């Protein structure tokens, strides 16, 4: 039940960064899913596609790296690692 809210938070974060960086387009988004984050890559992808509709993130490629180690300090988390953007150059 919390996926919706988690992913909305991520999309908002991505939009903020995109705005700060004067990005015109998000090419790809890379996330890490902890082994204990209670969400599978497929499930995450579905939610991501749904939540990004109508935002600058819509259509971005989604790369998911799963942390398989349950003892990893971030094993319970979902981490936004990086985003690739097209940047408007001002001259």
């Amino acid at each position: 039940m919390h996926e919706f809210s988690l992913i909305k938070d991520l999309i908002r974060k991505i939009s903020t960064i995109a705005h700060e960086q004067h990005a015109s387009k998000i090419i790809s988004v890379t996330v890490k899913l902890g082994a204990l984050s209670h969400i599978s890559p497929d499930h995450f992808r579905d939610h991501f596609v749904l939540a990004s509709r109508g935002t600058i993130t819509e259509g971005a490629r989604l790369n998911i790296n799963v942390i398989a180690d349950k003892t990893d300090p971030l094993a319970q988390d979902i981490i936004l690692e990086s985003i690739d953007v097209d940047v408007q150059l001002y001259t």
Partner: protein
Amino acid sequence: MKSRTIKVDYLARVEGEGALHVKIKDNTVVDVKLKIFEPPRFFEALLRGRTFHEAPDITARICGICPIAYQMSSVHAMEDAFGVTVDGQLRALRRLIYCGEWIESHTLHVYMLHAPDFLGYPDAIQMAKDYPDIVQRGLQLKKIGNEIVALIGGREIHPINVRVGGFYKVPAKHELSPLAERLKWARDAALETVRWTATLNFPDFEQDYEFVALRHPEEYPFNDGRLVSNKGLDISVHDYDNHFIEEHIQHSNALHSVHKGRGSYFVGPLARYNLNFDRLSPLAQETARSVGLSHICRNPFQSIIIRSIEILYACDEALRIIEQYEKPDKPALEIQPHAAVGYGCTEAPRGILYHRYRIDDRGMILDAKIVPPTSQNQKTIENDLWQFIPLHVKLPNDQLTLQCEQAIRNYDPCISCATHFLKLKIDRV
């Protein structure tokens, strides 16, 4: 155009699932909207086509803090449909498990969520630095509530031992004895909790509420009774739908429940206390009086004391039940399903929880209706804020935010499960 990679390393957080929008114009409040956007979970639809005996386990999943309430309302509704009355020791065990839930749920709210508001801390973790003994007492007390639920219910969260007609397995008398020893400590701790919460500072704030709660001929209500109010309501649970209606409103995913003729109403500890003070145990009544409360309390901020009195009552009642307990011969009554409609309403920690089911002749659920306490209190919360904000409108926004959060937390709304449950937006135009 140039592409580049931005390294972020940001941890995704669960967002607040509630928000409060306040609009202030020239120091006058012009709009208050409590929005709940926790996505709807469609439990009522999920229940269709499932058998009657699955209802307690499915609905328990609605809440991890008050699963017993969902189990109790559903089993009572099913038993109502099939004309079965569970009494004697099985009924007593149901009260006992409900005591456990009140203890754990109320203690969580009093110590971890509400007290930090009064003492000026963002949360109980920060509060623990300065009040280690108090926070520790809260944790111990909560644990005893959990132990009751685990012993009778099979496990602490989402217990699995409750069934329509009774339980799958009932404990022997000697299994309850260790609990009694722990509960004596808990009763003392609850007494201390009442005395401590009564020393907090309370804003002077009273409203003319309609309080709605169950009332039973002899007991402080858990599982049965008539629905009564301080404004003349006195109905059977069967008539709930004739008197209350759920309204869809645009700004919230939670339905607003209102009384058909009179609008908003108030459910929960304050309502139970005001309508059933005379049914509390002598110890709970005496303690209430000793901290200066009368049999009526209209200040929602003082709900923290009332909740503590209910913890005390639950400890007292649990001890009484354990003392008189004899293991019943059978863990459950036989149920013969037939086509019928069943109604159930019990007192969840946050107030009345209503269930209605329509069942076919094979015992399958045709439709279900569930009205949780938070949706019943939502309109009252908004009304409180309409009255409360003007008294504090000159405060800077950050302080006003804290005051409003506290006013909302008076109701222990379910959305407070999320730590940062509230985004408050104050528009001054």
